[in-house]
């Protein structure tokens, strides 16, 4: 019972082995090989038998005709004499001469099957020689001829040789089939086990992956065979899935944080309005705030959706050739007045054409995001400069009744308010409506939008003079929602850079963040297309 039980797993393992594709294929091959071997040997045996028969027949026929001739020449006496002399030689053929009444006259045959001597022609018969009394009977192929005068002559040859040969061939056949079967089965089991072990390893890995551990990878034997290729392809697939899952988790974490914060604010405002509002004006103000807040939420949500769709490659359908340099010029022109209003200057340096294949809207959106970012952070630097400029004369600022450094102050501060230590900042450029001169301290912080062709890439660059991003943070900021601490107070969803990065990847390119010394240089590098 215990033995049986312990055999249980082994049996099931064997059963599993026998069910493998490799083993079944082996069985099919074995059957084919065995049938072929059997057919070949059978054919060989039959032909050999026929050949031996023919040989015997030829010998016997010639001897019969020779003896008949002798009978014709020298009569019965001569025949008997020759037969007797031949019959007594060792290993001789069978001979028998009978009287018309059937009595033996000469020869070495002791007994025959009944009726053999009566019928003229060929026959296979059991016989016994004269000198044998007991023992196994032999089989011979004999020919009976009738001589003139009613005498009969029988000449035959023992078939033992033929039977022996046939047996040898049959034995060889059985052995070879057996060997083929044994070797084939063993080989089949061996191959199946090897394959099964690798497939089992893969199955185990997939099971742990299915259980939720996405870090597992299929083992690769290193032989480069079809299983290896399958495994490495599956591993690539797993990498992709893992990245997507990580992205999804990150998104849900970030959504929880960055969407819930404004939602909470929204709710609180509504509650506060219900509780405290005094009259229509308050309600109106609260509702307007609510709309503005929900617009912000919608914007964040749209950006998230867009990133998700860009990353899934879903937007790849509507791709066409367009001129990225033209987009840089257009979007630069779109933002130039805004930059100027903020006390910055925005300049576009673009090659004549820079063909890219992709989605014009999305690339436009990416550049817009980069410029938007550049403006936002350049304003930060302006603010900081303003603070620094005001620091030596804090009393002055307080007299003016101004909380230091609010964004409104930057835009509205008249140039004259600047202390001697801040000799005319950006405000000077506001009226001019044109490029401010670049040289000297009077130049407003400059944002440069560039479009250029570098080898087989089209590079769209937005360079600013803002605070820049430390080398350590440059990769991290491309993630969704990441805003460096210094910019937490800035408006914006924190999705601008990650959307630009997702758009770059959708087009087979990437977004690089570099040091503009000082400031940030964001380079959207896209594959160059054939000129449209």
């Amino acid at each position, binding site marked *: 019972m215990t033995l049986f039980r312990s055999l249980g797993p082994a049996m099931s393992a064997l059963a599993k082995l026998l069910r493998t594709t490799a083993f079944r294929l082996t069985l099919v091959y074995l059957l084919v090989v065995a049938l072929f071997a059997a057919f070949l040997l059978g054919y060989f045996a039959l032909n050999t038998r026929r050949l031996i028969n023919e040989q015997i027949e030829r010998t016997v026929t010639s001897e019969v005709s020779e003896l008949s001739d002798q009978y014709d020449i020298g009569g019965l006496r001569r025949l008997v004499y020759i037969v007797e002399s031949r019959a007594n030689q060792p290993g001789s053929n069978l001979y028998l001469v009978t009287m018309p009444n059937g009595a033996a006259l000469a020869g070495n045959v002791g007994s025959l099957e009944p009726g053999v001597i009566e019928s003229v022609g060929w026959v296979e018969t059991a016989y016994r020689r004269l000198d044998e009394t007991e023992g196994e009977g032999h089989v011979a192929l004999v020919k009976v001829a009738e001589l003139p005068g009613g005498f009969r002559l029988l000449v035959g040859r023992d078939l033992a040789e033929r039977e022996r040969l046939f047996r040898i061939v049959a034995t060889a056949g059985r052995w070879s089939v057996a060997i083929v079967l044994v070797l084939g089965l063993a080989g089949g089991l061996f191959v199946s086990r090897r394959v099964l072990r690798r497939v089992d390893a893969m199955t185990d890995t997939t099971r742990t992956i299915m259980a939720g551990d996405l870090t597992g990878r299929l083992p690769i034997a290193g032989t480069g065979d079809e299983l290896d290729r399958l495994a490495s392809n599956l591993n690539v697939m797993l990498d992709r899935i893992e990245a997507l899952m990580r992205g999804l988790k990150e998104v849900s974490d970030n959504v929880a944080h960055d969407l819930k914060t404004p939602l909470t604010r929204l709710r609180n405002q509504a509650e506060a309005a219900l509780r405290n509002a005094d009259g229509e004006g308050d309600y109106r103000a609260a509702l307007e705030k609510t*709309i503005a807040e929900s617009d912000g939420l*919608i914007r964040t949500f*749209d950006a998230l*959706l867009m990133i998700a769709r860009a990353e899934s490659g879903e937007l790849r359908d*509507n791709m066409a050739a367009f001129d990225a340099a033209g987009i840089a010029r257009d979007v630069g022109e779109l933002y130039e007045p*805004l930059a100027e209003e903020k006390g910055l200057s925005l300049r576009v340096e673009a090659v004549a054409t820079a063909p890219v294949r992709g989605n014009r809207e999305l690339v436009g959106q990416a550049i817009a995001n980069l410029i938007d970012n550049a403006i936002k952070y350049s304003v930060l630097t302006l603010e900081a400069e303003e603070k620094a400029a005001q620091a030596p004369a804090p009393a002055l600022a307080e007299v003016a009744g101004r909380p230091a450094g609010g*964004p409104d102050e930057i835009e509205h501060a008249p140039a004259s308010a600047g202390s001697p230590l801040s000799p005319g900042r950006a405000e000077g450029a506001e009226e001019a409506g044109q490029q401010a001169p670049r040289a000297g301290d009077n130049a407003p912080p400059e944002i440069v939008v560039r479009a250029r062709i570098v080898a087989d890439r089209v590079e769209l660059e937005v360079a600013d003079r803002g605070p820049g991003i430390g080398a350590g943070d440059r990769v991290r900021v491309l993630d969704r929602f990441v805003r460096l601490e210094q910019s937490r107070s800035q408006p914006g969803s924190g999705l601008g850079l990650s959307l630009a990065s997702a758009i770059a990847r959708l087009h087979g390119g990437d977004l690089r963040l570099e040091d503009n010394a000082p400031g940030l240089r964001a380079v959207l590098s896209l594959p160059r297309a054939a000129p449209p």
Partner: protein
Amino acid sequence: MSPMSRLSSAEQDTATGSTGADKGHAMRLLVIEDDRDAAEYLVKALREVGHVADHAADGEEGLALALAESYDVLIVDRMLPKRDGLAVIGALRGKGVTTPALILSALGAVDDRVKGLRAGGDDYLAKPYSFAELLARIEVLARRHGGREETVYRVGDLELDRLSHRVVRGEEEIVLQPREFRLLEYLMKHAGQVVTRTMLLENVWDYHFDPQTNVIDVHVSRLRAKIDKGFSQPLLHTVRGAGYMIRDTVAG
């Protein structure tokens, strides 16, 4: 937010209610939308501003109504029971009905818009939208259908010649940058109608993305400085919560 408040404080606000309907342009509209609340809200709001609005709750009903009645504009939700919004528009266009259609869709991405317009829609608005945006767009759609393609646009004493690219206010010639010219051209083409910021971005710059900041406002205020500065009668008005409108307030 600050530049925005500066704009609105510096300029005359026009009341939100000053729409086409006020001037006797009541439109017949069909809202095909399966969400009961959304449809109810929309129909009510459209009636409040003086339009006549019918409602169909699914694609089949919408198609039947659009074929049987004569509407100025169709407002079609993209995803509808029984028959998809795009299929409804396709079927109408197949039968030779050219009533302008505005597609509403929760799918806002760029390619969906392209699909919608390709299917025969005339404009596309992503949900959630502001009612002011929707209203501005259907009014422009209804007018476009009427066809207004003159070579010279006139609003008050402002004149824009589309062939010679000359802009004159009173006796004075105004020099505009090419983009400013296109901006003014679009505003004057839809004189008396509210034109939203996204409509300007779409039609003057040909971009459909959300610029996140008030880039358009700055362009408009530059244009305003050129055409209104020094004249007693402002023509380019900010419509609070909606957009802009060019209009001669004296002439009505």
